[in-house]
């Protein structure tokens, strides 16, 4: 058997281009899967490390339902109630002069928990707690962070926080390495009181960490006021994992698409290897090699290539993950919570998973060619006509396979109402079913194109079309791979554009006020007293609405409650989904009723008229859901309550934001400049026009999908390699035929044109076929995947731009992929190929 496998290895080394293409297909697929997995893993890990570094071995955390914990409560907790093993934390973010965001962690270094961030360092890097407390604006940071910021111990560090500038003094650096230091990357450790000044949270704490046994927990729960919540440590990490699950799953699905396209490429290459060796394989069979041995050989070959491709893919994936890291982190930062990740955690499980998936894809892809190879037997060589008849068989059974697959997809979608994974499974069956129709579609399109090709390119056009029809075994797989990749491009583009248009429409309706005023730092503090009155007196102000955010401790994850003091006109800004309640405004402003966003309704299975229990300051109370409104602020959703109703159950006069409606004819820019100069300077408040907020929102939207664009591009590259490999194979297989034609007077230019026309026809056919599949994918993404992942519904719009782009891409990809085989063919002397055999 060793000679048999030696022959296989040598065959691969004698076909370097095809071998390289197959390796590249696997490598790209594995690279994309690994990169996405590593980035997802790194983001989760960074969050967990940061949590662990801050909380240490605390077992529980007290968090406020909204804004901050009064620091008097911490004093009571220790002195009155005797919870000595507790530590206050003040957290938030500041910016450096060059725009870099840093986390601030305010601690009490002398507090009861022994595992404060300062106490866990190695002896040589331990910081004297007294110095941190006694030195004004003292800060401690890790050595890597200091290196990144270009500061060392004793230096000053300028930051902006709470709308003001501050000069911090670096009093020491934390070293020693390990997860603890990694968790404190991008973190400025300061004393609690310094943090309160930096973040404009005077008198407030962000959380209190504690170490409690069961008995103490029960005692503390009975003591806690309704405005505070006791949570088990680690619940934030769990919540983070839950919140970002759909986002991460969507990325993983897109990366698996790249692997699927890669598998097509492997299938294509293995089929070509078998075709090129059909006579040699027949000799082996004659000499006594059994069918299972042939199957094993073809699969082993694919595995060897996948091992090499997987290895390269892992290396490339690690590199690619660094490119994607920034995009993904920024998206999580924009959409979910503050997160900074600079290091990719090289998770061995992720690497093994991507490598294993690559191998599995290669083995599955090679199974059919292997079986085909094992059938080579009786007449010494499997004839090309036999191979083509197999290709014809696939074409004939196309509809018979596609329809059951689509029915299966429809069944999965109707049976599974909410599962995202089931949605992706259905998507897979839709794509797989369509793949079986591509060969038939290619044949029809090529036949229809014959008159056009003949008119445009004469006999070369005719010949090219006939070549494609005669070599379906080689061309149909490549065209299928490119069709799927282009369809993914169309589907994802249409989905993104539909989503964008929906968001633009929503922003136009929702942001109808002219000016929005809020705090620079989202610290839960109220607007300065008298600001509302002064604004009302300002010339040009027509109306004002106020807002207040609360986080209510509800089961599962906290509920975001938005308290809105709004009139009937402002209420119309909400785009209601059902509009069944004609007295919605009256109910909203007078009854114990709330509105819920679409995402919230989806995640909590709520409909108009349903009761919704919320923990108020007076205990749990049931509110009625009036209606559901379209809202794309967050995929976790929110509840909106009128201020008058809120005042019945909470004694909380805090106002965090103000929306100002200007009277017709008022110059908005001038008004903005006036209030910024007169009222807001030095107040920690910021005023923004609705245009600015819309632009910022759309910027975030575009950033969110930047990673999707990168993955889409990579998928397309994999598919282009598929077309290239098919054309190279055609060139290899027909080298003798081309040589005869060259010897008979065909010029190099004519030969190159024939090959490029073939590539162009294949690419264009892929593009045409990708349009219906792409639109179907977009529909599933919009109506199923997005709805199930985030709870958002949106309008499907069909812009021409992605479809036109796909057509151009297909044509160019096919023609460009033909350049190399044409150049290679033209470099060879015809006599060399004539002498061959």
């Amino acid at each position, binding site marked *: *058997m*060793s*000679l*048999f496998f*030696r*022959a296989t290895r*040598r*065959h691969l080394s*004698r076909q370097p281009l095809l071998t390289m293409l197959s390796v590249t297909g696997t490598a790209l697929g594995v690279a994309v899967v690994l990169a996405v997995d590593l980035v997802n893993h790194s983001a989760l890990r960074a969050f967990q490390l940061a949590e662990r570094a801050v909380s240490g071995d605390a077992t529980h955390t007290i968090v406020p339902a909204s804004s901050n914990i009064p620091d008097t409560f911490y004093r009571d907790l220790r002195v009155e109630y005797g919870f000595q093993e507790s530590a206050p934390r003040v957290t938030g973010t500041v910016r450096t002069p060059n725009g870099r965001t840093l986390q601030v962690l305010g601690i009490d270094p002398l507090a009861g928990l022994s595992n404060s961030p300062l106490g866990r360092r190695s002896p040589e890097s331990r910081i004297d707690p007294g110095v941190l407390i006694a030195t004004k604006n003292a800060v401690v940071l890790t050595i890597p962070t200091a290196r990144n910021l270009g500061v060392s111990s004793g230096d000053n560090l300028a930051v902006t926080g709470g709308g003001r500038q501050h000069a911090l003094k670096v009093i020491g650096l934390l070293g020693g390495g390990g997860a603890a230091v990694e968790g404190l990357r991008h973190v400025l450790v300061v004393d609690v009181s310094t943090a309160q000044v930096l973040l404009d949270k005077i008198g407030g704490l962000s959380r209190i960490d504690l170490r409690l046994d069961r008995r103490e927990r029960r005692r503390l729960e009975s003591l806690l006021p309704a405005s505070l919540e006791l949570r088990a440590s680690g619940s934030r990490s769990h919540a983070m994992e839950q919140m970002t699950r759909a986002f991460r799953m969507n990325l993983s699905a897109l990366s698996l698409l790249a692997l699927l396209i890669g598998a097509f490429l492997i299938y294509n290459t293995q089929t070509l290897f078998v075709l090129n060796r059909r*006579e*040699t394989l027949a*000799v*082996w*069979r*004659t*000499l*006594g*090699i*059994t*069918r*299972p041995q042939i199957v094993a050989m073809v699969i082993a070959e694919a595995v060897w290539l996948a091992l090499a491709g997987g290895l390269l893919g892992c290396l490339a994936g690690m590199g690619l993950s660094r490119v994607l890291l920034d995009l993904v982190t920024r998206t999580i930062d924009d959409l979910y919570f503050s997160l900074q990740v600079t290091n990719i955690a090289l998770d061995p499980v992720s690497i093994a998973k991507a490598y294993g998936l690559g191998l599995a894809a290669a083995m599955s892809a090679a199974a059919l060619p292997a079986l085909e190879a094992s059938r080579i*037997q*009786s*007449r*010494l060589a499997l004839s090309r006509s036999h191979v083509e008849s197999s290709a014809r068989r696939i074409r004939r059974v196309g509809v018979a396979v596609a329809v059951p697959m689509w029915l299966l997809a429809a069944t999965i979608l109707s049976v599974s109402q909410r599962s995202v994974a089931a949605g992706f499974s259905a998507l897979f069956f839709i794509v797989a079913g369509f793949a079986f129709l591509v060969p038939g579609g290619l044949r029809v399109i090529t036949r229809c194109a014959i008159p056009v090709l003949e008119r445009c390119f004469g006999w070369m056009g005719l010949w090219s079309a006939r070549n494609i029809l005669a070599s379906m075994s080689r061309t149909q797989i490549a065209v299928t791979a490119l069709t799927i990749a282009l369809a993914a491009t169309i589907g994802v583009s249409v989905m993104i554009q539909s989503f964008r248009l929906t968001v633009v429409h929503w922003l136009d309706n929702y942001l109808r006020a002219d000016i929005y005023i809020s705090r620079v730092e989202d610290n839960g503090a109220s607007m300065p007293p008298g600001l509302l009155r002064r604004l009302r007196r300002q010339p040009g102000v027509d109306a004002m609405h106020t807002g207040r955010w609360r986080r209510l401790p509800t089961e599962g994850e906290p509920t975001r409650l938005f308290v809105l003091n709004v009139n009937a006109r402002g209420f119309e800004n909400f785009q209601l989904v059902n509009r069944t309640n004609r007295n919605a405004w009256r109910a909203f402003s007078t009854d114990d009723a709330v509105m819920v966003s679409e995402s919230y309704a989806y995640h909590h299975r709520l409909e108009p008229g349903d009761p919704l229990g919320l923990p108020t300051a007076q205990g749990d109370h049931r509110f009625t859901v009036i209606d559901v409104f379209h809202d794309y602020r967050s995929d976790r959703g929110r509840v909106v309550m009128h201020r008058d109703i809120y005042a019945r159950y909470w004694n909380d006069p805090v106002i965090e934001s103000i929306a100002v409606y200007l009277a017709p004819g008022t110059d908005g820019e001038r008004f903005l400049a006036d209030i910024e100069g007169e009222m807001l300077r030095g107040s920690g408040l910021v005023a923004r026009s609705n245009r600015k907020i819309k632009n910022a929102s759309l910027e975030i939207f575009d950033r969110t999908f930047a990673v999707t664009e990168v993955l889409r591009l990579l998928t397309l590259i994999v598919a282009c390699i598929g077309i290239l490999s098919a054309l190279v194979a055609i060139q290899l297989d027909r080298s003798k035929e081309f040589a005869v034609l060259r010897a008979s007077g065909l010029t190099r230019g004519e030969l190159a044109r024939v090959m490029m026309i073939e590539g162009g026809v294949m690419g264009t056919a892929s593009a045409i076929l990708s349009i219906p599949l792409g639109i179907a994918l977009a529909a599933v993404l919009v109506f199923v995947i997005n709805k199930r992942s985030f709870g958002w519904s949106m309008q499907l719009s069909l812009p021409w731009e992605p479809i036109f782009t796909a057509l151009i891409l297909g044509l160019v990809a096919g023609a460009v992929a033909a350049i190399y085989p044409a150049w290679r063919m033209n470099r060879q002397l015809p006599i060399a190929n004539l002498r061959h*055999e």
Partner: protein
Amino acid sequence: MTPYVVLEDLDKHYAEGTTHRQVVLSGVSAQIDRGSLVAIRGRSGSGKSTLLNLIAGLDIPDRGSIRVGGENLHAMTDRARTLFRRRHCGFVFQFFNLIPVLTVRENVMIGLELNAFDDDTASRKTRELLATVHLADRADSFPDQLSGGEQQRVALIRALAHEPRLLLADEPTGNLDATTELEILDLIRRLPGERNTTVIIATHSELVAGHADRVLLLGSGKLTGS
């Protein structure tokens, strides 16, 4: 003499399209003695190669039976037929069919390796066989570096290396010049006497048939004479 190959009432056809079938062999019966050299002669398309493939177990007849060395090939599984062929048959083809990515030495060693000869024996036998056909100095060459005659000599010793009882040759000299043809025929002619190998050659050449102990004439799928 004992018959080594027994063919009984063989029929074989191939489908052409969905409706038409082409009859390749019809009612072919013959017995071939051990250690004899038999030529199957006929024009192109007369069914010579098909008959050879059936005797090698590469294909199965639609009707009738084939016994080789007492074994009923028709009754065997595909795997058993493959292993039978591996052990007991050697093949020589018109277009040589050497494995292009293996050297001359490696090509000769295929049969030895498949039949689990130990490395030393395989190397020794390969050296001896290459010397017999005067190709010892080309052992490390690849097939495309050899002339047609040299390739056929390699093909012949590859077929004989594992000492099969049956050598099947399909137009073995069809692609060679007259001098080389005689050289190859001479080598084949000596086999029955020296190794007691049964040799069956499919050919349309009168010259080749002239070297045979017996000639089976095949016309339109039927044996027309012996």
